[in-house]
């Protein structure tokens, strides 16, 4: 064995230092000039291969994706990875939160010509703007309500979730805000600010004998529905169109008399985006009728915010039927929640889940 002399020790230390230095000198990730990174749910419109091909041919901009599996994960990614994303798909409720935290930059609508025909009520949604400045391009809207197996009686109220005829045949969305919203609608309260959370908790707990599973991804929902594990579920309007058209599942989307839980997704540009110009071009493409008609008819999509795009759909289109404008009258749109209310909603859902598990 070699003795540890001064020279050997020095050699060792130099080697360690050199190794450390070479790690820190590794080349940083280089962003191509014509590239944008989009942060979105997987399989949610922006990552359709045919669309990206057409967009790249048109503009020369290539699109890469990163995905999130929950909206709070999206916010976490925006907060912790500055400079990583150019365009982010975010819900109206989360948009207000992101704007308040200075995570987004104002939108230059002159570079989004298609926005001219975007529904005024959606563009003016207070969650998307601050002091009259728009921070997101409204993209698509949709509903969360009930999905029922074809042939079963259509539920008229959310109270059907607790109906004994569906014993062990109900699937719930594992999302605190949606479930508290549905509990509030069941008990006749304002979905965004229920005054009696105890009543909401009781309403949700009353579903227990019926609850078979809690789903968290559309893929999981499809697999379990196909395996005939449940008949009635809290589900997304766009998801039901996709399940019916792509997976041929016998599912029907129903909006009961209390109205649907509505949502609007917008396209926002992070404050630290390396390529905001490219992101605006992609946002314009995403509300273009040419893109939307192909997306909605081939894959199934929620309703476009662009009325020109929605009107280009064929009259017998499944998505157009599901997104009946009649439903807009009873629909409550989810808005931004203050931190303490959000925490209270989360605690209600944790308590209900613990009760389900007993």
């Amino acid at each position: 064995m070699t003795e540890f002399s001064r020279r050997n020790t020095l050699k060792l230390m130099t080697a360690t230092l050199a190794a450390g230095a070479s790690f820190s000198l590794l080349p940083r990730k280089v962003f191509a000039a014509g590239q944008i990174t989009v942060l979105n749910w997987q399989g949610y419109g922006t990552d359709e291969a045919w669309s990206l091909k057409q967009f790249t041919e048109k503009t020369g901009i290539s699109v890469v994706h990163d995905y999130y599996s929950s909206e709070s994960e999206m916010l976490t990614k925006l907060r912790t990875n500055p400079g990583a994303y150019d365009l982010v798909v975010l819900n109206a409720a989360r948009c207000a939160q992101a704007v308040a935290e200075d995570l987004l930059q104002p939108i230059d609508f002159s570079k989004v010509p298609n926005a001219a025909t975007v529904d005024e009520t959606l563009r003016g949604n207070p969650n998307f703007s601050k002091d009259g400045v728009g921070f997101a391009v409204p993209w698509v809207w949709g509903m969360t309500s009930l999905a029922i197996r074809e042939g079963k009686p259509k539920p008229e109220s959310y109270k059907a979730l607790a109906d004994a005829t569906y014993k062990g045949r109900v699937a719930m969305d594992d999302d605190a805000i949606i479930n508290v919203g549905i509990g509030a609608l069941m008990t006749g309260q304002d979905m965004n600010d229920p005054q009696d959370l105890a009543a909401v908790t009781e309403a949700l707990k009353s579903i227990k004998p019926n609850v078979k599973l809690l789903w968290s991804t559309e893929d999981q929902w499809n697999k379990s529905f196909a395996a005939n594990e449940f008949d009635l579920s809290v589900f997304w309007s766009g998801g039901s169109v996709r399940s019916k058209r792509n997976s041929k599942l016998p599912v029907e989307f129903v909006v009961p008399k209390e109205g649907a839980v509505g949502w609007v997704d917008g396209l926002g540009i992070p404050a630290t985006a390396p390529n905001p110009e490219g992101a605006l071009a992609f946002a314009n493409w995403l509300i273009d009728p040419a893109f939307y008609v192909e997306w909605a008819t081939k894959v199934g999509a929620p309703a476009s915010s662009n009325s020109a795009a929605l009107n280009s759909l064929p009259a017998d289109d499944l998505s157009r039927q599901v997104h009946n404008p009649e439903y807009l009258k009873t629909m409550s749109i989810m808005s931004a929640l203050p931190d303490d209310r959000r925490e209270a909603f989360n605690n209600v859902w944790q308590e209900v889940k613990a009760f389900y598990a007993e």
Partner: protein
Amino acid sequence: MQNDQLALAQTRGSVDPRVKRPLPAWVSTTALLLPTYGWLTIAIFLPLLTMLAFSFMSATPMGKTPVEFTLKQYRAFIDQPYLLRIGFNSLMMGFWTTLFCAILGFLAAVALVRATVGKTRETLLVLILLPFWTNGLVRVFSWTMVLRENGFLDNILHMVVPDAGSISILYTRYAVVLGLVHGYLPYMILTCYIALVTIDDAIIEAAASLGARWWTILYKILIPMAAPGLISGAVLIFIPVIGSFMEPRILGGRVGVTMGTVIEDQFTQAFNWPLGASLSFTLLAVVLAIFATFSGVLRGRTAG
């Protein structure tokens, strides 16, 4: 400057090169330990300390919410008493998983050591490790295919007994424990194997020649001598199992709510990292308390 160094080198060169002045012992000791402790600090202590610091905050320190020092996160078990039941269920889940792993793993290790030699044994050991090469998520999802109504098990049963009802156990606690036992069994087999393989055959032959039956050999020789393997296997399994969230979520359905899923929800859904961190540390404290209690008992047993 350069001349000076040359001169220095010459004077040094004149000294016999084999005689080297040794450095003080602490310099080489420090230099040699630095990589290990540096790595431990960066990879383990810093993240743990960050989480410990988070657990005393009033809100996640990202974004604009003002952050204050508070102990309220540690009151969660008092403010939200349903967590106690979840915690108890998680501990029971850990207990049953560890128990089944211990029984099956020990028997498998005994079979490996006593009934196989050479190539066969090596092949079997590789086969035991093989499931580790596939993603855990894949293994858990394949269980859902087997266990669900009209799944693999149901179909086989209906081939034999067409009129039998469903024997599906998907979305029950049994399914969760089954998935966890499948995932963690190799740890127990390996730790027991290492302990058992060191037992001298002569001891067992001596016992047999003095008239000991197989159960006497098992309880008087094999289990006491393999106890260190059983204990380290149990520790390796129990700790990750009570914090597991993937298996309960996929196989447990409605009943799949554990401390692991509650903590995961705090990090991914509720964006309440402080609460998630405080729940983790509370769980860690409970686990340490359990092992502290039982380590005395176990040490007493092995010594006696």
